[in-house]
C-alpha cells in the first residue's frame, strides 16, 4: 500500500514536469519554425540569413545599450499582453488595447504637466490617471456585454476609434502646447520615471514586471482570480456557485483596460515625456494579442513572449540598416510564429498520430 503510494506520487511528479515541458515546447517550436521560414525567405530574396540573424542577435545581446533598448521595446508589450491574457481568462477578448492605451496616454500627460506636486505624489497620481481611464474604457465594454450582451470584440473596436479621434482632438486642440508641434506640453520632472543613466530604459520596465507578478497573484491566489477564471471556464457553473457573471465581466475588462492603460502612462512618463497627437494606432494593443497567445495567457509566459517580440522589433530596424534585409521579413517571422502557436491544435493531433504509430505511451491524456 505504502509502496503503491510512493510510486503514484513519483509518477505525479514526473507527469507535472512533463506537462511543464510540453507547455513550453510548442511556443519554442513555433519560434524555431518562424526563424527557419524567415531564413528561407531571405535566401529567396538573395540575402544571407546567417548574417541577418547575427545582426538580430547582436542588436539585443551584442551590447548593454542594445539590451536596454530591447527592454524599452518590451515594456508596453508586457502590459498589453497581460491585458489580453487577463480578459481571456474571463472568457473575453479585449482587442481594445490600442484605444485604452491612447486614452490613458493622454490622461497621464495632462496630469503630468498641469499640476506641480512632489514626485512621490505626482508619479502615483499620473499612473492612477492612466489606470482609471484605461480601466473605464475597457470596463465600459465589459458593462455593455454584461447588461446588453453586446459582443466585446465589436465594442472594443468601436471604442478604439472613439479613443483615437477623441485624443487626437484633445492633443491637437485644448491640450496642445502653443507652437508648431501637435503635442501636449512636457510633463514636469516630478512626474517622470527614473532612467538608467545614458539610456532610455526606465522604471516602466520594473512596473511592468511588478504588474505581471500582481496579475499572477490575483489570478491564482485570490478569490477575484478564482471567480474570474470560473466565469471564463463555465459561466453557468460559476453562476450556480453564487458568482456574479456580470460583475466579473465588468471587473475583468476594467483590469484588462487598466493594464493596457498603464502601457500608455509609462510611455509618457518614462519615454516621451509628452503626448503626441496620434496618426493612427501604434499597434501595441494588437501585438498584445499575439504576445498573450504565445505566452499561453500566463503572466510568466507573457513576459517571455513580450521579450521575444521586443527582440524581434528591435532586430528588424538593425537588420534593415546593417544587413539590408527589409524589416517586413521580421513581420513575416512574427506572423509565422503566431500562426504556428494558433495551429497548435493541429500539431497536437499530428503528434498523437505519430505516437500511436510507434505505440508508445501518451504524454497528454485528454
Amino acid at each position, binding site marked *: 500500500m505504502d509502496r503503491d503510494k510512493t510510486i503514484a506520487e513519483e509518477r505525479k511528479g514526473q507527469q507535472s514536469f512533463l506537462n511543464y515541458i510540453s507547455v513550453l515546447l510548442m511556443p519554442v517550436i513555433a519560434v524555431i519554425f518562424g526563424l527557419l521560414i524567415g531564413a528561407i525567405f531571405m535566401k529567396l530574396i538573395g540575402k544571407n540569413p546567417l548574417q541577418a540573424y547575427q545582426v538580430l542577435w547582436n542588436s539585443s545581446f551584442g551590447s548593454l545599450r542594445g539590451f536596454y533598448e530591447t527592454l524599452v521595446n518590451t515594456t508596453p508589450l508586457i502590459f498589453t499582453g497581460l491585458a489580453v491574457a487577463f480578459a481571456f481568462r474571463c472568457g473575453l477578448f479585449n482587442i481594445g488595447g490600442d484605444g485604452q492605451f491612447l486614452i490613458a496616454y493622454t490622461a497621464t500627460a495632462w496630469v503630468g504637466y498641469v499640476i506641480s506636486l512632489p514626485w512621490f505624489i505626482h508619479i502615483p497620481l499620473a499612473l492612477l490617471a492612466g489606470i482609471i481611464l484605461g480601466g473605464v474604457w475597457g470596463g465600459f465594454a465589459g458593462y455593455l456585454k454584461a447588461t446588453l450582451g453586446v459582443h466585446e470584440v465589436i465594442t472594443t473596436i468601436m471604442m478604439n476609434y472613439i479613443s483615437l479621434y477623441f485624443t487626437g482632438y484633445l492633443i491637437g486642440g485644448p491640450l496642445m502646447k502653443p507652437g508648431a508641434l501637435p503635442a501636449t506640453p512636457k510633463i514636469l520632472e516630478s512626474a517622470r520615471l527614473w532612467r538608467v543613466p545614458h539610456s532610455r530604459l526606465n522604471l516602466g520596465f520594473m512596473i511592468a514586471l511588478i504588474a505581471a507578478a500582481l496579475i499572477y497573484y490575483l489570478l491564482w491566489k*485570490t478569490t477575484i482570480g478564482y471567480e474570474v477564471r470560473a466565469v471564463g471556464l463555465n459561466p453557468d457553473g460559476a453562476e450556480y456557485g453564487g458568482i456574479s457573471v456580470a460583475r466579473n465581466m465588468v471587473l475583468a475588462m476594467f483590469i484588462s483596460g487598466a493594464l493596457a492603460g498603464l502601457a500608455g502612462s509609462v510611455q509618457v512618463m518614462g519615454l516621451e515625456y509628452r503626448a503626441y497627437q496620434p496618426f493612427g494606432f501604434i499597434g501595441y494593443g494588437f501585438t498584445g494579442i499575439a504576445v498573450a497567445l504565445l505566452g499561453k495567457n500566463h503572466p510568466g509566459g507573457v513576459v517571455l513572449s513580450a521579450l521575444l517580440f521586443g527582440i524581434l522589433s528591435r532586430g528588424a530596424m538593425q537588420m534593415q540598416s546593417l544587413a539590408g534585409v527589409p524589416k517586413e521579413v521580421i513581420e513575416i517571422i512574427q506572423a509565422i510564429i503566431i500562426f504556428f502557436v494558433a495551429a497548435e491544435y493541429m500539431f497536437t493531433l499530428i503528434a498523437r498520430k505519430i505516437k500511436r504509430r510507434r505505440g508508445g505511451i501518451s504524454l497528454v491524456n485528454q
Partner: protein
Amino acid sequence: MAGKNELALDLRKITKEFPGVLANDSVDFQLKKGEIHALLGENGAGKTTLMKCLYGLYQPDAGEIYINGEKVDVTSPNIAIEHGIGMVHQHFMLVPPFTVAENIVLGSEPRRRGMLDEKRAIEDVERLSERYGLNVDPRARVQDISVGMQQRVEILKALYRGADILILDEPTAVLTPQEVEELIEIMKSLTEEGKSIIFITHKLKEVKAISDRVTVIRRGRVIDTVSTDSATTSDLARMMVGREVVLRVEKGPAHPGEVILEVENLKAKNDRGLLALNGTTFSVRRGEILGIAGVDGNGQSELTEVLTGLRELEEGRILFKGKDITNFSTRDIIETGVSYIPEDRQHRGLVLDFTLYENLIMGNHYQPPYARGIKMNYNKIRKEVRRLIKEFDIRTPNEDVLAKSLSGGNQQKVILAREFDRDPDLLIAAQPTRGVDVGAIEFIHKRIIEQRDAGKAVLLISLELDEILSLSDRIAVIYEGEIVDILDRKEATEEKLGLLMAGAGTRRAMGGGA
C-alpha cells in the same frame, strides 16, 4: 446467419493506465453475437475506459482486440466504425443547432455534386428509424427535442454508419421511466435484427430485465462473467462493491418541526418564454423529506432554479425560515443556508476544467477558512478537500486532477461532498443519484436521511418513482407547473402517483370528469 455462440467481440487482457490510476487491469471481455451483455461496476471501476479503448478513443497500454474473430488494431474511432462498432456516449456528442438528420449523417454525409444531399439524408433517417421503431423526426433541431429523443438520435447515428455492435454507456441514466421502457423495447428489436449490445448501467433492475449475461468490474479488474438468470440483484451488488449492500432504504419515522421553506403561488417562465411554473405552492418542514414527483418537463427544473436564485420569479413569494427571500441572489441564498444538488452536473454543478479542489470549494470559496479577505488559503483548502475526498470516497489519484477526468459517478460525489459539507438548513436535491452506483446510492440515501434526522428540511426532486417512494415523508406531485396534490407517504402508491403525474388531479381533469 451467425450462431448464438459465435463471438462478436473478444477483448483479451486489456490494460489502461492513467496517471495514478490503473483504470483497466488486464480485462478479458467477450460479447456473443446477438446478445445483450451488461457491464456492471462501481463509479470509476473502468467501464467507460474499457469501452473507449474498444472504440479507439483511448489506446490500451496492453492487450488485444478481436472483432468477429479478426485481430484489429483499433487506433481511431474510424477503424472501430469500419468494423461495425457504434458507441452512444455517457454524455451526448450532438451538435444542438443541427437537425436530427444532419446530426445522424455528420461524418458520412450522402453527397450530391459535393453538397450535402439533404433529401436523401432525411429519407435514409426515416427508413432506419422506422425499421427499428425509433420514431424520430429527422427535421427537428436537436436543441428542441427531449433527452430521450437525443439518445435515439445517437443510436441512429451509430446504426447509420452500419454498426453491428452497439455500446450504450449508461443510456438510462438520463431517461424517464417511460423512456426507459421504450429503450428496452428498442434494444430488443435491435438484437432480433442480429445486433449485439454492450449495455452499461447502474440499475440492477434493468440488468435483470434485459441482459443475457453480466460482467462485473471492480477497480479495473473483471470479477466475473455470469449469465443473468443465475444471479440475483443482491448477488450482483455484492460482486460490484465487494460487500453486502442494503438495497432497501431503512429509515425511521419523521419528526417534522417548524416550517423552513414556504413557497406561494410561484410563477416563472422557462427558457422559451412560456409559463413553466404556474402557481406552485407548498412548504417543507424541519425534519422531513418532501419529494416532488412528476414527469420530466413539468416545471421541476424551473422550480429548483427559482429557489436558488438562478431564474427570475414573475410572481409569488418564497419564505425561508420566515424571511422573504424572493429574488435574492444565488450567493445570498447559499449564505442563508441552502444547499443545492443540480440535476445537470456537467453544465451547472461543476467547472469541468477546474481542479477537484477548486470545484470542492465553489460557493464557499470566499469565506473562511478557505479565504480571508481576497486572499485564498490553499493550504487550508487542500486539507479540507482531502478530508472531503476521503469522507465521500471520491475515487481520484489526488485533488489536483481536473474534474473532467473523473468518472461520471465520482463527479456527482464531488458535488454531494461540497453541498452536504455546507451543513445547510435546507437541502434541495435534484436527481441526486443519477448515474451513481448502488454502493453510492446507498451512501447518498443514508446521508439524505441523516440530514432529515438532524432536523434539516429536504426537498427531493426526482424522476424516479422508486427513489421518491423510498425517501420521502410526503410526496407532492407536480403537473404543468402546479402542485396538483400532496400525499402522505403512507397513502401514496405507485398507481395513485402515476395517475396524478399524468394530470388526473388537475382542476381541469376533475371538472371534465364530472
